[in-house]
């Protein structure tokens, strides 16, 4: 069945979120926030397995604590994104979500993505949002305490929260058991092997790795062998003798490098496609913006002088 933590936490969180979104009054709002926070904590603690730590206490580690904190931040900020009556605040809270996500990425070993996320999302996309918000809210936003009527009242929060709860429970439940088969040691071996192999694709990376083990030696191309979590390679030493060398774990290529190799090597068409999509989006944005250039009345009249015709604009 659905894990108890999820069920209880989800229910609590939903009730709290509903209270927050109903915006019935200050007290209710606060209470709702507290309940939602409780529910969220229950969910996160359950997710982190705090309910049943390992016998030797190995269940809790520093990355886990960091991730827990990032999770709390992330969930709270996300809640505020959808509950804040002021769109600008919502956008800023979204930045917080992104920053928390960055921390989570770091704990999961995705260093490159962590920084790309902050740069692309917080730095570029969110700025665009802010820009548009400012542009659009200028007039309406000042009218009534900084937020328009449609921002202050949620639309059918009951249905929204219910649907969200159902989706959360089912997706989280489906994911819950996924880690049961997770074996850190094996996974680490696989990851290491894949990194070694990726290094084979990168002559420069391999030279650096060999240099780290045996200074002055040069690798013989195509001789790398990966077995288990270890990699060995034939090298030509500085003195011209050849030797078989086992690469150390410390000479693994960094995350950015391997992600780059995977990106270019495994998904070349997708890379091209992404470029096409960006180009198309640029063209689209230009055309949409151009549509906003309104005609003067005289021009409109000239265009529509054909009887019964016109109206294209």
């Amino acid at each position, binding site marked *: 069945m659905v894990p108890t933590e999820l069920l209880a936490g989800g229910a609590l969180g939903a009730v709290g979120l509903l209270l927050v979104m109903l915006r019935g009054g200050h007290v209710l709002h606060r209470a709702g926030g507290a309940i939602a926070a409780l529910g969220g904590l229950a969910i996160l603690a359950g997710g982190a*397995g705090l309910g049943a730590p390992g016998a030797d206490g190995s269940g809790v580690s520093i990355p886990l604590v960091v991730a827990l904190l990032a999770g709390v931040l992330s969930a709270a900020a996300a809640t505020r994104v959808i509950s804040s009556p002021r769109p600008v605040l919502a956008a800023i809270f979204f930045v917080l979500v992104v920053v928390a996500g960055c921390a989570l990425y770091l704990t999961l070993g995705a260093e490159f993505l962590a920084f790309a996320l902050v740069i692309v999302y917080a730095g570029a996309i969110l700025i665009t949002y802010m820009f548009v918000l400012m542009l659009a809210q200028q007039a309406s936003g000042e009218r009534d305490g900084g937020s328009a009527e449609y921002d202050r009242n949620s639309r059918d929060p009951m249905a*929204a929260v219910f649907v969200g709860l159902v989706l959360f429970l089912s997706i989280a439940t489906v994911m819950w058991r996924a880690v049961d088969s997770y074996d850190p040691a094996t996974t680490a071996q696989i990851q290491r092997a894949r990194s070694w192999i990726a290094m084979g694709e990168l002559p420069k990376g391999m030279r650096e790795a060999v240099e780290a083990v045996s200074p002055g030696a040069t690798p013989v191309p195509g001789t790398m062998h990966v077995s288990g979590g270890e990699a060995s390679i034939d090298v030509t030493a500085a003195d011209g003798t050849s030797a078989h060398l086992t690469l150390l774990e410390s000479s693994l290529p960094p995350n950015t490098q391997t992600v780059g190799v995977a990106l270019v090597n495994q998904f070349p068409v997708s890379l091209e496609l992404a470029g096409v999509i*960006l180009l198309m989006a640029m063209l689209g944005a230009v055309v949409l913006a151009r549509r906003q250039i309104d005609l003067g009345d005289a021009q409109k009249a000239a265009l529509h002088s054909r009887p019964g015709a016109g109206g294209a604009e």
Partner: protein
Amino acid sequence: MTALTSDAALIRLALVIAALLFSIGIAGFLSRRNMIVMFLCTELMFQGAALALIAFGKMHGDLSGQVFTIFILTVAAAEAALALGLVILLYRRRETLNSEAWSELKE
């Protein structure tokens, strides 16, 4: 309940957060009327999917999840560019960001 190792707990925590972000995004998409905030909510959903991909990548010791996330960022940027252009266009027509202002087409 079986005890989790630290790494497994980390991954499951990330997955739960991913589901949470996704669902909060959907709930927001359904309840907010401001079109810009609505689109922000779809970005939340994208965030959830991206986090799940990275967590699963960690779980399998595979990097393609991270590569996928790069593309999600790209597409999110492209969609945002178009969506915001459209929203501005709509705003010019109706002087409002309220999505319910556009409900003339119906049964």
